[in-house]
């Protein structure tokens, strides 16, 4: 690899990092706090690539052949435009044994006649509590997530929880009954009542008797 080509390879990676952090695409891959580190890394790499890019074409320094592969992420982002992970991964990982989600920092409690707005993690945590601290029994709750299904033909309101990067997502899902399944991967807002007693053990997801389903736009951050 000649020196200008080395500069170009690094500049291509820099351009990718700057692009995804400016457009918000980075949220498909990593956690929200990574935005500024990615931008800074992109800017720094671009500065470092400047001098070799301006060097003479016959200037060389040895790098292994695998360095060519640094171009691959850029090529993939432009040619495949990888979407956020969704139903495909959720269905493949759904059968793994999972631990109940951690307790929310502030426990939302039902009050009045209005629907209780919960994240899927809060809801699955709440139904697993034997004392029903959230007051979920007979309470209308409102949840958001994307649609996934299983082999039996049931459908689920689903979220993917991201710990570090998209390679380590875990699945949180709630089985929906009483309504026709929306298209797979479609984001939905559902209202319904917990089928009391379901989801109390971590290995079986809770069931929601759905009364309303609305299709919504996918959120900016596709993971929770």
């Amino acid at each position, binding site marked *: 690899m*000649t020196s*200008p*080509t080395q500069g*170009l390879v*690094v500049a*291509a*990676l820099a351009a*990718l*990092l700057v692009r995804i952090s400016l457009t918000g695409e*980075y949220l498909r*891959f*990593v956690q929200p706090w990574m935005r500024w580190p*990615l931008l800074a*890394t992109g800017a*720094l*790499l671009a500065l*470092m690539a400047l*001098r*070799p*890019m*301006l*060097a*003479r*074409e016959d200037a060389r*320094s040895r*790098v*292994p*052949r*695998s*360095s060519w*592969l*640094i171009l*691959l*992420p*850029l*090529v*993939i*982002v*432009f*040619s*495949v*435009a*990888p*979407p*956020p*992970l969704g139903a*495909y991964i959720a269905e493949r*990982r759904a*059968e*793994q*044994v999972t*631990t109940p989600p951690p307790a929310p920092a502030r426990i939302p409690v039902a009050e009045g006649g209005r629907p209780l707005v919960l994240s899927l993690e809060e809801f699955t945590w709440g139904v697993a509590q034997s004392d029903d601290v959230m007051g979920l029994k007979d309470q209308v709750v409102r949840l958001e997530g994307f649609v996934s299904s299983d082999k039996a033909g049931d459908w689920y309101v689903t979220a993917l929880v991201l*710990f*570090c*990067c*998209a*390679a*380590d997502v*875990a699945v949180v899902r709630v089985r929906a009954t009483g309504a026709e399944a929306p298209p797979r991967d479609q984001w939905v807002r559902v209202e319904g009542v917990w089928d009391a007693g379901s989801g109390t053990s*971590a290995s079986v997801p809770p069931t929601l008797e759905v009364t309303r389903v609305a299709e919504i736009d996918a959120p900016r951050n596709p993971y929770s």
Partner: protein
Amino acid sequence: MSSGPAAAPRRPLVNQTSVVALALLGTILGQRWIQPLTDNESLRAWCTMFVALVVQATPFLLGGVLLSAVISRFLSERLLRRVLPRNPTLAVPVAGIAGFGLPGCECAAVPVSEGLMRRGVAPAAALTFLLAAPAVNPAVIVSTAVAFPNDHLMVVARVVASLTTAIAVGWWCVARGDALGMARRPDAHRHGGGLVAVALHDFLHAGGFLVVGAMAAAAVNTFVPRAWVDSLAGQALLGVLALALFAFVAALCSESDAFVAASLTAFSDTAKLTFLVVGPAMDIKLAAMESGQFGYRFARQFVPVVLVVAVASAALVGRVLL
């Protein structure tokens, strides 16, 4: 330095850089026609995971190569002498303890350990640092404590077993001596490169191997059903080995692997500990980067030894503490 086109005699019309630049331009302009060709769910999921692994690691890798360049240029050998005992056997445990001080993931540790060797640190001590830093740094300790809120012994066990692994492998390296067959790359400083040129060269070198590792890890995370792993949870010994293998092939960040370990509830605590000890010490991404950095002959010995020592130390510590 560059010179204008007039100064370069008979510059060829077609050169490497322009071919690469044209190919990239073609990909960017042609995306409208290429994208429909790749409409396959599993391929797209692989692409998302692969790009995610590379994007997540790049800032840490850049930090690592910059720190490495700074170490090899500015850290005085006198200071290093004062901190590190000259005898490699004594330097190994000190280097292991020093691992508490670098809050980075394993991608940063590879170039930093190479930088330490360039500065004259005994290879065995630098390798101990490489094994210890990603496993026992403060960020990892905190995330492990958060992932195991009711089980503080897991944090202690992880630190003890990881440190034991790093030091034991370090001493093995001292004993092997020159038989390790470590391929040292020619020092880039000799080619008159400045700090930035050295860092960029290191980045290209390690980055390529990082991409290779990320490709393999993304494939495992996309295509291997987690149910295969879970099916071995019942057996004590097989469970330990299954999670050791899983840690090797999944190549998760050491700062997040505790959350994944906590979700493997079907496994024994010792098996989970094995997952936490093996992952930061050795995985598919690190094996690729290390064979790039130190040579294939070295990696062929080093990788299996680290795996065996890590599993043994986790099993032992798990038996005593958990």
